[in-house]
């Protein structure tokens, strides 16, 4: 039902077992979390509106329509819900996750938000998996225990230089900090291509995506890499082998 979203066409996708699973809940931390969330949702190319639920006003301004359009999205698809608190936000998300006609549900929390605990994230993850609704949870503060499928850190990174020392397309330094039942601690520098609405691993020419064969060979190349121990206990009974899944 729910597919996977290729990110860098290489090592990162292999670690994720063929890309980011769409029918799941993913946690995003870091100063570029908003940008990463917006780009992931646009890259997922699922039809329907994006429900962006916020628990309140952050200190980083409001989402700007023209900026969404500049990333390649249609601002009219973005439905903004000002829930006015963490608990109303979670209730609204629970409603939204029952609606498979949505392209994605994004929860934007500000600050530590201790109410979003293990139980809450498990509920979000289970609902996302049951209905195949792509769910992203933006979090502030330090990482907290969570049952989300993956956890990411997103930082802005210096962009390519264009003529006259102008900054080029947005680049993000992202870290897969945690993956349930899989390896983690992988860094990748991604460049956003607005016209094709997808990421490319920075350093490659943005116009030329990595051929599938190369990506697959790279995934074989790291097949023997040791897994991080973090998710091993949860992985019982599940394969965490990137080859097995990307080949399937």
């Amino acid at each position, binding site marked *: 039902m729910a597919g996977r979203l290729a990110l860098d066409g290489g090592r990162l996708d292999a670690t994720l077992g063929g890309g980011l699973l769409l029918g799941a809940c993913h946690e995003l931390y870091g*100063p*570029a979390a*908003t*940008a990463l969330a*917006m*780009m992931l949702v646009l890259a997922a190319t699922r*039809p*329907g509106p994006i*429900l962006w639920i916020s628990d309140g006003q952050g200190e*980083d*301004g*409001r*989402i*700007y*329509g*023209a*900026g*969404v*359009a*500049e*990333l*390649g999205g*249609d*601002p*009219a698809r*973005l*439905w*903004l*819900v*000002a*829930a*006015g608190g963490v608990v*109303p936000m979670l*209730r*609204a998300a629970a*409603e*939204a996750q029952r*609606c*498979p*006609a*949505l392209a994605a549900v994004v929860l934007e929390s500000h600050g530590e938000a201790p109410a979003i605990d293990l139980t809450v994230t498990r509920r979000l993850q289970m609902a996302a998996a049951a209905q195949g609704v792509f769910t992203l949870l933006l979090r502030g503060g330090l990482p907290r225990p969570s049952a989300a499928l993956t956890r990411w850190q997103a*930082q*802005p990174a*210096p*962009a390519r*230089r*264009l003529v*006259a*020392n*102008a*900054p*080029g*397309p*947005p*680049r*993000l*330094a992202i870290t897969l900090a945690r993956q349930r039942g899989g390896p983690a601690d992988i860094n990748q520098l991604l460049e*956003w291509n*607005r*016209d094709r609405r997808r990421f490319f691993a920075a350093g490659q020419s943005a116009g030329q995506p990595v051929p599938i064969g190369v990506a697959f060979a790279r995934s074989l190349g790291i097949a023997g890499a040791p897994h991080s121990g973090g998710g091993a206990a949860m992985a019982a009974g599940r394969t965490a082998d990137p080859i097995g899944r990307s080949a399937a």
Partner: protein
Amino acid sequence: MALPWLPAERLIRSGAAPPDVPLALIATDRGRQVIRAVNAAALAEGIGPGLALADARARLPDLRALPHDPAADATCLDWLAQGATRWSPMVAARAPYGLVIDISGAAHLFGGEASLVSDVVTRLHRLGFSAQPALAATPAAALALARFGGSRVSELPLAALSDAEPVQIGLRRAGLRSVGEVARLPRAAVASRFGEALLATLDALTETAPEPLDPLLPPADVWAEQRFASPIASHDAMRAALERLLLRCAAQMGGLGVGGRRFALALYRSDGHVARLAVDTAEPQRDARAVLRLFDERIAALNDPLDPGFGYDLLRLAVPVTARLDEAQLGLDGGALAETQLNELIDRLSARLGRGRLRRLVRADTHIPEQASFLGALGEAADTAWPSPAPGEPPTRPLRLFDPPQPIEVLAEVPDGPPRRFRWRRQVLDVTAQEGPERIAAEWWQRKDGAGLTRDYWRVEAADGRRFWLFRHGLYERETASPRWYLHGLFA
């Protein structure tokens, strides 16, 4: 229904005055304290409205006096009218102290007119209000009969025709004693002698031209109600009753080929209080279960939860707003199914959070950045399309915008050159790459003073990779000697 003692009884009910003691409500009129309303005990002592308080005190030294509050009386009357909708949906409050209930078609539900009237009087008495009931063919006649007593309109005194003293005197001088005698006169003569207004009142009293009732609630074509011999207080019982009412309304709407856009539930508590809840739907709806879920959301989101008190003895569901809903629309396939699911989601979220909290980004036709994108209501048609950016170019507008822009300190090599270094949130950031300026002029044609400073926008990247949208406010030397800098947005 006349409530002659309403002002006094309202105060007695609220505990501001003891019962059975002569009480007068006073207002200051041209420096004099004049009695505006009294209770029955005061009237029995010969003290009535219009008397000066000083004169009244001379007759009855221990007369209690409290200020008269017509606004509170009107609120109280409205509250009573709300409660009176239990007998019939057609209820109107008539200032100052009258209630009109249209019982045509409702009396049989209470075992006839007489038992309905006694039910009304008993319930009002339990609330502490003495009501004088009267039944008549027109609202004005019923009110007049309730106020002046009697059983026939033609026997009503002249005061029922006009409150103005000169008119009453004029009628009396003409040898008239009752409404019936005035009604027998030629209409043209009455109009030329006493004015059209008197004739209009006369017509409203007799059945010549009954004035329309202006009901408290707009009448609904589709409604259903359920009465309980013993009041229900539990949430489950209430929910089950609501579901039955929804099913009955759904059946009525199915017969009419319509769906409801608004569902209004009234819960009548046995002590006279009425709680009202309403849900709105984005599309016409007659699926009882879907609407029940909306009510669940609504009840869960209530700030002060429903207090059943001693229980509800009547639930009424009305569908005041309906729209066509054909069977064909109910047969759903792919696209229509997604549409329906999304509409239901909007309904549930707005029932829970309030419709104002669901927004979308709307583009305005202006080049002032902070006005170009604003929040519009969800569900409205898109108006202005967003421009598509030029292929191959990096984003020129930030993903997040500060409104208002945040003032920053900037170091530039030359006053009209690009920024080199700036301080934001107690952090000094070195600019490593920049693009600009993009010049955005103030909309001088929109401003009365014709002025407004030009902004020079720069897209800059700091050493740590963060990208910012800065602008210099005012052109150096041409518009201002020391332009200020602002940070307006954050790029990805």
